[in-house]
């Protein structure tokens, strides 16, 4: 009964924290486009906070630089359970154009924290990001919430 109530609440109100671990900022701009009236992220009950302590979903962009290796894990630890990690763009997957010989990028992100969903593209379209968040977000959070820690 309580779980059912929690599910409903969690599904209808998702809080998102955007983390750029050293990318070109293009994916962040696509997320800003999501917030704009054209795509209007908040109509789905998704709110962007830049505070991991309030976040249910961590949106990660960028190709993990030297300074972000430890901080990424710290931020992940600060997010309350249940939490879902979604990576946006190619940088968190392969390092993309930054992963040249001799560059200090430590992609993929999945080496440091568990990743639930990946959105390839450089940058992906806002609608692709939205579809991924909606596909993975509500159910995953609800399911994770039922797991015993």
């Amino acid at each position, binding site marked *: 009964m309580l779980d059912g109530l929690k599910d409903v609440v969690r599904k209808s109100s998702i809080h998102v924290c955007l983390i750029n671990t050293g990318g070109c900022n293009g994916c962040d701009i696509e997320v800003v486009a999501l917030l704009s009236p054209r795509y209007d992220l908040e*109509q789905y009950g998704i709110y962007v906070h830049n505070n991991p302590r309030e976040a249910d979903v961590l949106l990660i962009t960028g190709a993990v630089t030297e300074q972000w290796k430890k901080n990424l894990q710290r931020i992940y630890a600060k997010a309350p359970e249940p939490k879902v990690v979604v990576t946006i763009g190619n940088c968190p997957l392969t390092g993309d*154009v930054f992963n*040249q010989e001799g560059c200090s990028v430590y992609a993929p992100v999945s080496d440091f924290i568990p990743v639930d969903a990946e959105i*390839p593209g*450089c940058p992906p379209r806002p609608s692709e990001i939205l579809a991924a968040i909606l596909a993975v977000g509500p159910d995953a959070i609800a399911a994770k919430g039922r797991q015993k820690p």
Partner: protein
Amino acid sequence: MSSVIWYLYEFARKSWAENFAVAKTNPEIVETPERFRDFPQVFPDYCISCGACTAACPAPNAIKLVRSEDTAEEEGKAYPVINNRGCIRCGFCAEVCPTDPKTITCGENHLIREEFTILPADRMFIIDDYLCIRCKKCMKACPVYGAIYEEDNKIVIDQSVCISCGECLKNCPVKGAVKGIYVANVQEQKDIINLTVNTLEEAIEEKRDDISHLSDKEVYKFDLPIDELVERARSILANDDLILDTFQKITDRLKLRIVTWDEDKCKKCRLCVDECPSGAITYDEKEDVIKRDTKKCLRCSTCYQTCPFGVAGYYVSRFLLDPPSLEEGVIHITVKASQLPIGAD
């Protein structure tokens, strides 16, 4: 006050209340437009395994050439594989792909369309400042404002504005002052020039007996029909306008220098052997003969000025194609002795 009334009116509308209750984005406006360049598509059958796509790709992990396994019937084929996790959808791979049809396609913008080639016309018009008399008839005839302008007392054609209509060439009163240069088929043009010059030189060589008797004041004239020359030029490049234009430029500008060699007068002094700048004149010790290699000769006249016995003869010839047509035209050749001083005198 008026804005308050407007708000009351707006809020009272039914559609506003409906939209307020169920706020939804119109799905049409978030649809992917057709012009959107998505991940590239690969058609392995067309691939020639050149590797141009991998060289053009700016992302290190995006594209790889892989080779399928050999089977009993045929060898394995190499073809590119796109890794969507690394691809940045720039479309460079599709742009550089040389196969037709393309092995890799990516959106629309890699199609380089024919009408945007850099050289829209086959001729480029320039003004020869040495021959130009500054009459400005070309400027008046030019239909494009600013295509021909005067700068530092020179008339210049602005190539970025010129539409290659050829009006300047038609209205120029001086032969050769405005030149229409064919920008394509450069190698064929070179071949035609070589062919024509060699033919003219051979024709003069055949008349050597007549020429060698010429005194300083005399001029030797003869005509060369161009039927055979035109046929051979057409076999190089079948463009009559270009051939006629090339012939006219050659006959107008060419000043062919002829070196004759009279071995009977030679006393084997070998002065010319040391003087020749290109090594065309050699002394054969076994046969005790001085030889001149016509292929190496620069026609510089040094041997003619060096020889004390008049072995080398030096003549200058000029040409005219008249009338200027490929069918009826005849090349008039004029040969006369050079006015250079000779060592013997």
